[in-house]
């Protein structure tokens, strides 16, 4: 089958090393313009006193706009991005980011909207937030939303804090939060931040939560179970109804991590399978651009019993059709963001959901799950498949067979770059040794999938026949394997003038 033979990620020859911006300046160059001052100038030394005024911001470059544009354009070319090709990163849902979103999010009515503008003059923003809340409520099957968390991990924090507030209000100070061993690292980190003791629950051979272990651990000192469903092995928790019953029967609440929502859009709803809180990664499921690491947007959907504890303020719709913030929330867990959350990301997520409608969302889940299962079927002959049954939107393989030839999951990842693909998520979940976690999403064509599969199969052959080739990869990227140990042992975390360079020119 076709595709995948063009090494998009491998562009050696077109690129040059780009020195740091701090080495590109020239005394007297400017990269900005300001209007002529139309009010009297004020000397900071007179206004503040000389002791509070600095001479200059030493080290800042002196560059023209042209220098800046060339510098950042050049370094950008050392990045791989979604528009170039597949990012099969398990648990990350790296799907296409529509261009429309970048346009609509930049309407001046949004970008110049101020969070403290009187509500009467902020009705558009409030209406968008309210509409998005209602939509996410329908998708999750949970009645209320908080849009405030800035990313998934902050959504987790919000969710667990609401759970803590709920128990406290009932006069209980439960100490434990149960977390399956396949969970994301953010789960135990969040539980600790809220003062809970994270207790690990093992997975069974089938890759789902061990019900007996859960029963043993669940008691009246347990505040919640933090469950990712579908889980990080790409498997739906078949006994979800029973899990929810066990947790609820002991007075605990079900926190559901929504990292994998893409698989279940319109198929099942967290509120219907017993979740009390569910965070949504807007930047995954509803495709706000990843931006090299953010910004995200991590709204939290919640059940009726947690409603009083929502972060303040909340958006309400009045009978006359107008919208306002309600900040009079005595039981609220407090504020989690300086303002109302990552609004510009909400605009993008809203546009995406409105483009799809109910039927489109279901199609997303169908296609994402079909693509993952297709990859699983085509790769299982060469790669160890720890759980050989239908997966959801991602499949987790292991490097066990390649390890026999000394080739690790990381080597496979690096070699994939030579074939023009971003590698999958690696060494996660921790419950699978040498895990390769592959999530294609619905925005990858069959040609691209086949190209990826062919590359993976070729690498499996190479691991047998020429292991050194794989272990030395990547060979064709501009930078070859980078020394992470050196970076950690001798951290260089900021630019400083190199010793052979002259000191910086004095500025006025």
């Amino acid at each position, binding site marked *: 089958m076709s595709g995948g033979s063009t090494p998009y990620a491998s562009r050696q020859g077109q690129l040059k090393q*780009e020195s*740091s911006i*701090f080495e590109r300046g020239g005394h007297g*160059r*400017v990269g*900005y313009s300001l209007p002529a001052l139309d009010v009297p100038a004020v000397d*900071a030394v007179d206004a*503040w006193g000389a002791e509070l005024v600095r001479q200059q911001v030493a080290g800042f470059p*002196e560059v023209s706009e042209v220098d*800046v544009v060339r510098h950042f354009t050049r370094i950008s070319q050392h990045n*791989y991005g979604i528009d170039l090709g597949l990012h099969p990163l398990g648990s990350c849902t790296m799907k296409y980011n529509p261009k429309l979103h970048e*346009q*609509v999010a930049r*309407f001046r009515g*949004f*970008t110049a*909207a*101020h969070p*403290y503008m*009187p509500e009467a003059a*902020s*009705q558009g*923003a409030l*209406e968008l937030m309210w509409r998005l809340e209602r939509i996410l409520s329908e998708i999750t099957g949970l009645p209320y939303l908080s849009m405030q968390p*800035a*990313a998934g991990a*902050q959504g987790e924090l919000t969710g667990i804090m609401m759970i803590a507030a709920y128990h406290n209000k009932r006069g209980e100070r439960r100490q434990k939060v149960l977390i399956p061993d396949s969970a994301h690292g953010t789960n135990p*980190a969040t539980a*600790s*931040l809220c*003062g809970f003791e*994270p207790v690990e629950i093992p997975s069974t051979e089938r890759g789902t939560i061990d019900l007996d272990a859960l029963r043993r651990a669940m008691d009246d000192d347990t505040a919640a179970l933090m469950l990712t469903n579908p889980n990080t092995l790409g498997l*739906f928790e078949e006994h*979800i109804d029973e899990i929810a019953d066990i947790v609820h029967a002991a007075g605990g609440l079900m926190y559901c991590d929504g990292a994998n929502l893409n698989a279940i859009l319109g198929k*099942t709803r967290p509120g219907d399978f017993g979740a009390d809180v569910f965070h949504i990664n807007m930047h995954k499921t509803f495709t706000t651009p*990843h*931006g*090299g690491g*953010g910004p995200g947007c991590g709204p939290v959907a919640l059940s009726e019993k947690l409603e009083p504890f929502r*972060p303040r303020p909340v958006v309400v719709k009045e009978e006359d059709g107008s919208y306002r913030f309600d900040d009079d929330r005595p039981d609220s867990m407090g504020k989690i963001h300086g*303002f109302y959350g990552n609004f*510009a990301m909400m605009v993008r997520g809203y546009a995406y959901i*409105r*483009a*799809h409608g109910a*039927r489109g969302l279901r*199609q997303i889940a169908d296609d994402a799950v079909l693509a993952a*299962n297709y990859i699983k079927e*085509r790769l299982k002959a060469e790669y160890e498949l720890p759980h050989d049954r239908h997966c959801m939107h991602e499949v987790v393989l292991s490097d066990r067979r390649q390890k026999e030839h000394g080739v690790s999951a990381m080597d496979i990842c690096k070699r994939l770059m030579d074939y023009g693909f971003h590698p999958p998520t690696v060494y*996660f979940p921790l419950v699978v040794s040498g895990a390769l976690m592959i999530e294609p999403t*619905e925005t990858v064509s*069959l040609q691209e999938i086949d190209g990826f599969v062919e590359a993976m199969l070729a690498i499996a052959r190479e691991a047998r026949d020429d292991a050194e080739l794989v272990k030395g990869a990547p060979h064709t*990227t*501009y930078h070859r394997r*980078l020394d*992470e140990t*050196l970076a950690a042992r001798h951290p260089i*975390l*900021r*630019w400083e003038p190199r010793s052979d360079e002259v000191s910086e020119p004095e500025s006025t």
Partner: protein
Amino acid sequence: MDDEMKKGAVTDRNDTGGGGRYLSLGKSDREAMLAAVGVADVEELFAAIPPASRFEGSLGLEAAMSEIELVDHLEELAAGNAADRRVLSFLGAGCNPHFVPSHVDALIQRQEFLTAYTPYQPELGQGTLQAIFEFQSLVCMLTGMDVCNASVYDGASAVAEAVLMARRLARRGGRVLLSEGLHPAYEAVARTYARYVDDIQFEVLPLDEHGRTIVGQIDDEVIAIVLQQPNFFGIVEDLRVAGEQSAAAGAKLVVNTTEAVAFGLALPPAEAGADIVVGELQSFGNGMNFGGPLVGFMACRDGDKRNLPGRLAGRTVDVDGQEGYVLTLSTREQHIRRARATSNICTNEALCALAACIHMCSLGRNGIADLARTNLAKATYARQALADRGMPVVYDGPHFNEFAVRVGGDAAELVDRCLANGVVPGVALGRFDAARADQLLVCVTEVHSKQAIDRMADVVAEAVA
């Protein structure tokens, strides 16, 4: 709901009335893939969902919208905000009205930056990594600190994380003194983050009549003092007093900023003895966006870097000895350290940090000082213009680009009256503190012409009268 949809929507053609254009599989692809997987119907792949938990109906959402309809719809929503030229606004308070040069936004829209994943695979993310490294360097230069992280959500969570970091550094709990000049929303977020940390007690340090924090003498039960520069009321603090006191008591001085442009002129906090400098960089290269996304940052001394939350980019070499960058010191982070991580943060604000980085580079050594001087001059003029019309400042200490005035009545009502005349003169402070209901916080920057300031002052004077 039609039968085709129930079956999994293997229709002849993807929906052309909405998001179908984003789907990459067509009918023939799906058929071939189902055959390869060995199932007749895609529903079989969802068999693990127990019947009781299945959602059988159709989600109650409005119909899919085409691109044409969506643009119209969102234009309409955007027009529901008075954020265009119809309104002259002097709102700031940590979400500040600065000009964003065109090239900043053009560069961050390059797909290589916009759509890239977190650079855990450094060979494919050198662009992002080098930009983060330069961002970290610029913030170190601006604050005088040794190490800066790759960003956190916003200034508010940065303050909260700084309090928790100070507790880790102290290896014990204790009292945390928050200046009354700290942004009230930041204080609220810090209290939220620390709610379940039983051994932290917050106390508030009041302001003197000039608007500066009264630090006084502190004892050794204090683990951190948190000040803001310039403070919430726009006053330039003399951080050196807090620096001396915190050093003497063995506490950490945390300095927050919601207006980093001030550091084009203001003494770097490190020189006043700050141990941790945090805050918000939205003023550089980022729009206001109804309050998010923002650009929180955290900077510290070299010796404390292993307690810093968030990602860090570091310089290294590849196997050929070629210089490059990686994410480093990851053992602080949740994906390695899990329950014992310095923070639960994962995703940060990388693209917003990139915009801030590009804007700071473009301003450069001269521009950042010029920009700060312009802001200072405009705000000084506006302060005088309001004083001339009978609205005195609340605090007479030195200010930067923001100041609080008394309007002699309810400020929120005044704002509403001014809005009717197309002017929003500032933030009515009663929303944070009922005792300040007659106070207005006015932010004046390079975007405000003398003419605009005069008009604002006139409209306010008229509304007061």
